[in-house]
Every structure is written in C-alpha cells, then in structure tokens.
C-alpha cells in the first residue's frame, strides 16, 4: 500500500491550506449600526470545484475503515453500514427539537423503540439517550449515582469513586468532573480486579465503582458477582463502562451481572461511524431504582401515543437538547438490521477474530483468556515505533503503550468485520515488524502521506491556526 500524496514539493507541503489558495478580506457592510458590527472578515473565497478538489485530496490522505483493517483496542472500529447514513438523511429525521409532541410522534416512537432495544441488550430497566458520547454517559451515570446517594442522605459521605488502573482515562476524568475523589485500584496479578484490594478500598465513602468488562485486557471479570456484592454491601453502586460490550452481545448482560448503571458506546458496539473523533452517542441504562434520576426528558408510551416526561427526581440535562440524534437514528437502524441473531454473531466473530489473530502473531500476549481484544507486548521494541512501522505494511496499527499493565502494550481489537485473509495480513505485518531492527522501526513510516512526524515540536512551537503560520 502506498497512500496518496498530494504534495507540492516546491513548498515542502502537502495539499495547501485553504487560506494559501485564497485569502480574501471583505469589508463588512450592514444595515445595522456600525458599532454593532465588525469591520471586516478574512476567509477564503473559493469556488465549489476548488473546494471539492481540496477536500477530495484531503480525504485520500486519510485512512478509514474502508481503507483497511483498523484494530485499535477498545475503540471497536467496525464497518459502518452505508444504509444507516441514508436512514439518518430521511427528511423526518431532520426536525427542530422544540417541535410539539403531537407533531413528532415518529421521532418519539423511534426514541422509545431505541430505549427499549438498549434496555434489553444491557439488561437494564430504563435508558436515557441524551449523553452525546461515552464520556458524557459516564458523567451522566455519575450524576445519577450522586442524585441517588443524595436522595438517601449519603451524598456528603460518599465522596469517592473507585477505578481500576486498567480503566479508560475517561473514567477518572469523569469522576473528577463530578467532584469525586478518584481511588485507583491496582489490578491483580491475573489482570483482573483483586477482590481483596477492592474490599479494602470500598467503604462508607464509596459512591461508585466503575468497571469495564471484559476489561481493557480483554479479560472477563469472572468474580463479577462477588465484586457486585462487595460494592453493594458497602452501599456503593456499580458502573459498567460499555466500551467493551461488543464482546458480550447475547452472552452476558451488565444488568444480570449486578451493574446498576451503564453506558453504551453506540459508535463502538452499534457501528455508527467514528467520524474522525465523533460524533458518537453514550446512552445510559440504569436499574429500576435509579430510573427516576435520569436526564429529562425521557419518552414513554401511553395509549398509542408517545410522550415526553421528566423523571421525578431528574438530574436535569447533560446536553442542550436531545443529544446526538442523527447518531441515534443510525443506532436504531443497525440494531434493527441485525436483530438477536446478528448481534449474537457479531460478538462471536469479534471474539473469534481476536483469538485467531493472537494465535498468529509472534509478540507475547501475557494475559488470557481474552475476548474481543488482547494486549500483546512489543517486548524490547518500542510499541509506538512498532505502530509506525506497521503503517508501511498497509494496515492500521493497534492502540499502543496502554494499558500500562503490559509493557510496550499493543492493544489489539480486530472486530468481527475482518475476514481471515485480512487477519493473516495483519499478523504478517506484526510478525514482519517483530523481526526488524530499531533503525528500521525508527525511520518508519515511509509509504504514508507524511513520513514520521515530529510531534514534540508541534507542542514546543504551538501553531494552532493558519493565522499563526503567517506570523
């Protein structure tokens, strides 16, 4: 694979910036009084053909799921079915959020249906679709937990959220945002929660224990029932980070394991596109006793009519309107397309693919049995260099250097969408790089649009806009 390059060698740059193609300062004239308006505006004024070419070139200098395998651990880079885009583009999906209930029965029915689907899949009693991303879902769950403890008069006392050291960074960050002290729980030797350490950590001050299952090493927390018991006995709640739900569809449900709150990463489990960073959506599910604290409004069905309602002790809102609606439409479409069978099979093949790929690579995988992802160790090699070098083999590398429990981690999640041939190609890339020397690794990549980029200098010499380049 050689990635496309639209370079301008005379200027040492790839496709020029829009401002370099055209920068046009216009004077601002208005019917408004002068003192209420700005003087001028300087943005490019380019024609549609020029823009089409600019962005088409940029796109060819970007790697997506349709370009090749994208085995980023914990990111669940699945194929994004094309038809879901068409569904989200239906005229009925594009309406204003302040429309009357009567005039948006279709939208409300879809929301209600999706709440129901998600509740069934997670084994939860009530669902809110509002959080616009996974981290927002975490934060919402924390607010719900806080409201619950508050209702129990325990808010002042429960000031801590416990998070395993292998957790995603969003867990502690969301906990801190909620005003909690973060207690980091070291993993046990088997890479899982150490029950003794957990018992020691929980107590009267525990508001919430946040857990990913299977965890970021791909390991199922076999002691989940004891974990739940321990946390619940201490008066805490148990939170399920849905990042790895793709491993369990139809085989185990967070609600059945004793989790009280969970979020769903629909852009992972339910294949809505990652969009270069977003938008996703992070609906949360809760058990019955927490339903009254969920964000407002939710949707209920009464006599063949769908109504918005505010849960009794709602925490209020976590998004200005209803969250990332178009993403939720795609989510509904994906779940409806797959149904029980498809969802079940997705997890089966995701786990099979991870295990098959791991069986074909030479790097050591210290922890097992893993499910939809595994963490290999690059050993003496620098995992970041390994990743750069893998790019030259026409594949996207795994997540690197994390979780830290594995040294020089290569956190790998092929997902169910790869066929054996592609997995073999990935394995070949891993194995070829495993046999290469540091010099080769350090000078990689060579076949990509840009060669190795000096990231440190971007931070040293901060230029965050084209205006800064002109200075």
């Amino acid at each position, binding site marked *: 694979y050689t990635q496309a390059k639209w370079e301008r060698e005379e200027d*040492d*740059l790839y496709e020029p*910036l829009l401002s370099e193609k055209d920068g046009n300062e216009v004077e601002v004239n208005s*019917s408004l009084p002068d*003192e209420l308006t*700005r003087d001028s*505006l*300087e943005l490019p*004024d380019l024609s549609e053909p020029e*823009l089409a070419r600019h962005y088409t070139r940029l796109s060819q*200098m970007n*790697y*997506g799921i349709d*370009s090749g395998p994208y085995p980023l651990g914990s*990111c669940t880079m699945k*194929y994004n079915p094309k*038809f879901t885009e068409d569904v989200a583009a239906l*005229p*009925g999906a594009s309406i204003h959020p302040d429309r009357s209930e009567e005039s948006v029965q*279709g*939208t409300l029915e*879809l929301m209600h249906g999706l709440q129901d689907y998600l509740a069934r899949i997670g084994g939860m009693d009530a669902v809110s679709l509002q959080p*616009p991303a*996974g*981290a927002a879902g975490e934060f919402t769950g924390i607010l719900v937990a806080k409201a619950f403890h508050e209702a129990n008069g325990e808010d002042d006392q429960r000031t801590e959220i416990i998070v395993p050291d292998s957790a995603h*960074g*969003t867990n502690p960050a*969301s906990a*801190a945002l909620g*005003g909690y002290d*973060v207690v980091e729980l070291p993993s046990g030797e088997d890479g899982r929660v150490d029950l003794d350490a957990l018992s020691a950590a929980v107590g009267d001050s525990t508001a919430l224990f946040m857990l990913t299952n299977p965890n970021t090493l791909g390991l199922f927390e*076999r002691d989940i029932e004891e974990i739940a018991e321990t946390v619940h006995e201490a008066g805490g709640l148990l939170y399920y980070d849905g990042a790895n739900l793709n491993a369990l569809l139809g085989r185990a449900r967070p609600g*059945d394991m004793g989790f009280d709150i969970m979020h769903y990463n629909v852009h992972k489990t339910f294949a809505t*596109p*990652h*969009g270069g960073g*977003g*938008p*996703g959506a992070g609906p949360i599910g809760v058990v019955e006793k927490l339903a009254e604290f969920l964000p407002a409004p939710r949707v209920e069905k009464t006599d063949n009519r769908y109504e918005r309602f505010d849960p009794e002790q709602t925490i209020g809102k*976590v998004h*200005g309107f*209803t969250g990332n*609606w178009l993403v939720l439409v795609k989510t*509904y*479409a994906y779940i*409806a397309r*797959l149904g029980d069978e498809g969802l079940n*099979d997705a997890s089966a093949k995701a786990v*099979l693919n991870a295990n098959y790929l791991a069986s074909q690579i030479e790097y050591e995988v210290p922890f097992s*049995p893993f499910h939809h992802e595994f963490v290999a160790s690059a050993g003496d090699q620098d995992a970041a260099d390994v990743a750069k070098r893998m790019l030259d083999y026409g594949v996207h590398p795994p997540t690197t250097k994390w979780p830290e429990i594995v040294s020089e981690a290569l956190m790998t999640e092929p997902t169910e*969408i790869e*066929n*054996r041939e592609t997995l073999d190609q990935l394995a070949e890339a891993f194995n070829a790089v495993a046999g290469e020397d540091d010099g080769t690794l350090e000078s990689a990549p060579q076949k990509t*649009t840009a060669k190795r*980029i000096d990231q440190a200098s971007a931070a040293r010499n*901060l*230029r*965050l*806009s*084209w205006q800064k380049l002109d200075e």
Partner: protein
Amino acid sequence: MTGGNASTGSPYAPHTAEETMAMLDAVGVESVEALFDIPESVRFDGEFGIERRSEQATRRELQRILGKNRNLTEFLGRGQYSHYVPSLVDHIADRSEFLTSYTQYQPEVTQGFLQALFEYQSMLVELTGLEIANASMYDHATALAESALLASRVRQTSGNKVLVPDYLLSGRKSVLENYTEGPGLVVEEFGTDDGNVDVNALSESIDEDVVMVYAENPTTRGTIEENLTEIGDLAHDHDALFCLGSDPVALSLLQKPADVGADVVVGDAGTLGLPASYGMGLGLFATREEFVRQVPGRLVGVSEDEDENRAFTLTLQTREQHIRRERATSNICTNQAWVALRTAIHIAYLGSSGLVELAENCVTLADDLAEKLDDIRGVQAPVHDRHHFREFVAHTDQPAPPIVADLEERGFAVHEVGEHEVQVCVTDVNEHAVGEFVTLFQEVAR
C-alpha cells in the same frame, strides 16, 4: 455464505463456515462459545426479542416511523438554527476516509482530517478574533459549561460564582449547573432590560466571587446585544472571564468578540454544516492563547515530517483524559469532529462574502417579517425595541397557545414563549414560505 443476503448471523461479519472452522482449529478450540470465559451464573440465555430485518425492510420501517412526524414548515430557532446546507457538504463528508476514521492518533496516515480540523480551528479564530479554538465540544451547552470550568481553573483568586443572564435557555442552564456542581461552582442569574443584558443589574450582581460572566449575542430572544464592551469590562474589573455565546453566522457580521473583551466564545457551530437535527450540535470553543494549557478537547497543531514537509498532528495531548486521567482539563474523548468537518466545508463554501451576506440576510429577513406581523391587528412585533438577528418575539393580543396550535394545524411551527408571546425565526430555509406564513398568522391571530 455471507453477503448482503445472509439469512443468519451478522451481515457485516464475513466468515464462511469453513473459515470459522479453520480459525477455530488454529486457535485450538472446538467452538466459538468455548472462547467465552463467562461464569455460567451470569451467562445470558434469554433473547433480546429483536427481529432481524433485511436492509430494505429496515429502511422501510424507519421511513414508516419517521413518516409519522408531521410535515411542518418550521419558524423555529431558540438555540437551534437552520441554514441551507450545500450538497457539497454531504458528498464530501460522506467520503468514507473521513466518516469512518478514528481520532488522529497516527497522524502520518490521517493528514487529511487533521488539516481539515486545523482549517476549522483557523476559521473560528478569524470569526472570534481569539487566538485559539479547539476541534469541537458536543454542543453550545456543554461548551458553555466547559468554559465555566476553565474560568475557575485559570482564575488567580478563589471564587465560585458563574453569572448568566435570565434569558439563558433552561437546557443550557441545567447542563451548566450539572457540570459546575462537582467543582463547587454556583450559577446565578442577572436581569435583562428589553431583551439585552441590563448592565446595571449585572454590576449589582457581580462581585469578587464571580469567576465568569456569560452573555449571548444574539440573545435567545433574537436581540443583538449592545453593551458587550461594558459587560467585558465589568467582568475584567472583577477578575472574571467574559464568556460570549454566539454562532459562526452571527460572528461573521456582529462585533468581533476579541474586540469587546471576550475571553471565551462558545456556541453552536453546527448552525452551519448540519441540517436541523433534533438538537444535535457542534460545540464551538475559542479562547485566548494564554489559557491554552487549560483548554478542554482536541487541538491540532503544525509540525514537520522526516522529509521536512509541513504536517499536522494533535498536540498538547497531555491535557487530555487518556493521558492525564483525573487531572485532565475535561473528560471529553469522543467529540464532534465530523460535524466540525461539515461546518468547515460549509464555511469555506460560503467564503467571506457569502457568509457576511448570509448573516446580513438574518438581520433583514427578521426585520421584514417582524414588520409584516406588526401590521396584523392584534400583533406587536418585535416586542423588544432592539436590532434582531434571525428571530424575534411578537406580542399577541389573543392568548399565544391557541395561536401556536392553530398555526401548527395549518402546517407551521413557532415557539410559544409567554402567554401572549410567540417567537419566530426566519432564515434562508423558510424565507420562501414567509408570504403564506404571514397570511395564516393573520387568520389565527385576530
């Protein structure tokens, strides 16, 4: 057998039965189920009860359900605004290299998206006059909340109050309260005068405990703020940040935030690039360079590659949750990057001239419509003796609720904002229906 017609399994998992068997062999297990290390006691042996459908049937079902929404011409605004999104935006943004890519953690293969985000940041820098803009927050409300958190972090002295005008949308206020409760901030309102900030009320509310003062331009009720400099001065006199809420269209015409002392600009940048999406947005977040290490969200910077070609990369990632964890500037990870791409394309499509023209239309269309409604007996519009942008409030002698309901019956949606007040928003997307709207308004308002 797989393919588009597979009658079992996931249509997006390519495995043939033989392939599956061979792979199981290689792994050394007998069945896929043997790979699941799940205690029997928590195994799920039920069914979701979700019926599998073909692609065609799924599309038809979604079309059927969404088809139940009434087909109304919307004269709605109040925080979500629509402008015509050129086809170019859809066609480019749907290119799978953009749409299906992940965050740019490997910049060597993601130069395209990085450059587009860098250009987006640059456009917002021009529009706000501030030195930096991040690569997106979720929406206006969460951007406002993050601004308050930034204010409390950067402020030299202690303090815990955030001042907001009484016109602040309840949804935005609720989000702000939720985000600021943990860090111990308190949100307080100050009064307004004929739609805009009442500088006297503000100066009475403000004290040394205030970390941030927020105002909007245009306001929720569509008025153009006239005292921005005074608001900024008041904030700065009390060592508080001045956060201004706006959007890219308004920013292209109205006073440049940097010129009036704004320290942070927030808003919904999805006003360009996204159609009405039931509230889905794009949080705009721009601020002063001095606060760069306290900024939430992703930032794209410039560097060079080994060939000394200019190249883009995410930068200052040490602020972010995946590295700094509980000490991160925000918990945001998944953001609205693809919407930012759409917005950037839309802004580029309009260009400086087109954008200013669009913004000026927002002034004149609202003026013209208010005048037409004002001509109706029993209607006074606008209520506020101010300049307006896109929308305005009208007083109706008759009670507002039946007027709104009657209009809806006739195919038009407006906001009811008081017992005798409706709010009406007009842009290029409903401009063509203004004539019919005014006629019907006359019918129902008298």
